[in-house]
């Protein structure tokens, strides 16, 4: 059998160009530990975590749970920024843990805390009860008596420009990051919040919907839409590109007599 001898220089060149296995880097993960029934202030526990360039914050937290301390409380589900479960404050900013890579934070120390403006259940898990109740109060569905498709009728026709008016607001995954970033919500616990207001706009702007007046009445209360100071932090932190600050301004337009 004939063999071909590869020249030594060529062998070395091949070895140099081959993809190298990157050495895992180590970062310090600081996790806020709090049990509200026992303490008021969180204490931080530090863990050394080996990370690759693709490691997400959620994976780092799950590494702690699997290998170092299984008692860390964290809520997560889809791991692909679809379910909105793993919202938390990462290095001071509300983010989705599954959607935030450690490499993009560019810091050897990563601090994770529960989101602001939500009651804490334990550690990183917060209570969404009020946010979901507010969301429900906004009537997040198309209100139309003639929505039933009967024989001889057809579904509502919607032009692309009609869809454009509300499409981005329908991408909301109810992760609560916007409510966590809202400065009004930190002092006004009765404020509807950017999540609820953006959803109120999403359905009000839908040309199939007939519930405009009902929703406008709900948001037009003393802790409703007028308490927004347009800081815009809700839009800044949204992981799905929704712009609740704009929705609030457009909804205000309806109340002031502009728009549809």
């Amino acid at each position: 059998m004939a063999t071909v001898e590869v020249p030594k220089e060529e062998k070395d060149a091949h070895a140099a160009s081959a993809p190298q296995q990157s050495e895992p880097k180590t970062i310090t993960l600081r996790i806020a530990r709090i049990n509200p029934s026992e303490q008021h202030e969180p204490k931080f526990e530090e863990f050394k975590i080996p990370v690759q360039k693709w490691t997400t914050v959620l994976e780092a937290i799950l590494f702690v749970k699997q290998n170092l301390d299984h008692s860390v409380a964290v809520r997560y589900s889809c791991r692909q920024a679809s379910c909105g479960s793993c919202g938390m404050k990462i290095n001071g900013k509300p983010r989705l843990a599954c959607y935030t890579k450690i490499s993009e934070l560019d810091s050897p120390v990563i601090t994770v805390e529960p989101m602001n403006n939500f009651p804490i259940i334990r550690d990183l898990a917060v209570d969404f009860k009020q946010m979901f109740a507010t969301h429900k109060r906004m009537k997040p569905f198309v209100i139309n008596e003639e929505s039933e498709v009967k024989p001889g009728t057809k579904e509502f026709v919607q032009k692309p420009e009609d869809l454009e008016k509300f499409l981005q607001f329908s991408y909301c995954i109810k992760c609560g990051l916007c409510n966590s970033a809202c400065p009004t919500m930190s002092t006004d616990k009765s404020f509807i919040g950017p999540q609820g207001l953006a959803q109120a706009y999403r359905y009000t702007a839908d040309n199939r919907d007939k519930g405009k007046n009902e929703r406008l009445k709900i948001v037009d209360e003393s802790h409703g839409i007028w308490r927004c100071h347009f800081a815009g932090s809700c839009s800044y932190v949204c992981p799905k590109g929704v712009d609740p600050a704009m929705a609030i301004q457009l909804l205000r337009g309806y109340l002031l007599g502009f728009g549809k």
Partner: protein
Amino acid sequence: MRESIIMKIHYGTALGAVALVAVHILMRLSQNFSDSLSYKNVLVNYHLLPYALMLEVILVLLSVHGFNGLRVILLELKQGRSYERAINYGSIAAMAVLIAYGSRTILMAGMGVS
């Protein structure tokens, strides 16, 4: 009253106040600035009926706008049914007292009672 109506009043009073206060400041430039603030010249303003009326309107606009702004700040600071009721009625009462006191000043100065 619905909040949107209150806020329409809030924005309207702000615009009105900006316009009229601008007129009020521009009137200081009709003569030497320090002269315009002398006791005698200030009294002349009150004796001039259109100007006295403008001052009265400014007083009302700023009182309504200012106390509603304060009401909003206080509502955001703390919540609770009785607290909110106290703030709402308290703001209206304070607004009425300030307008009454200011109007009394304008009226007395206009009539030459000092």
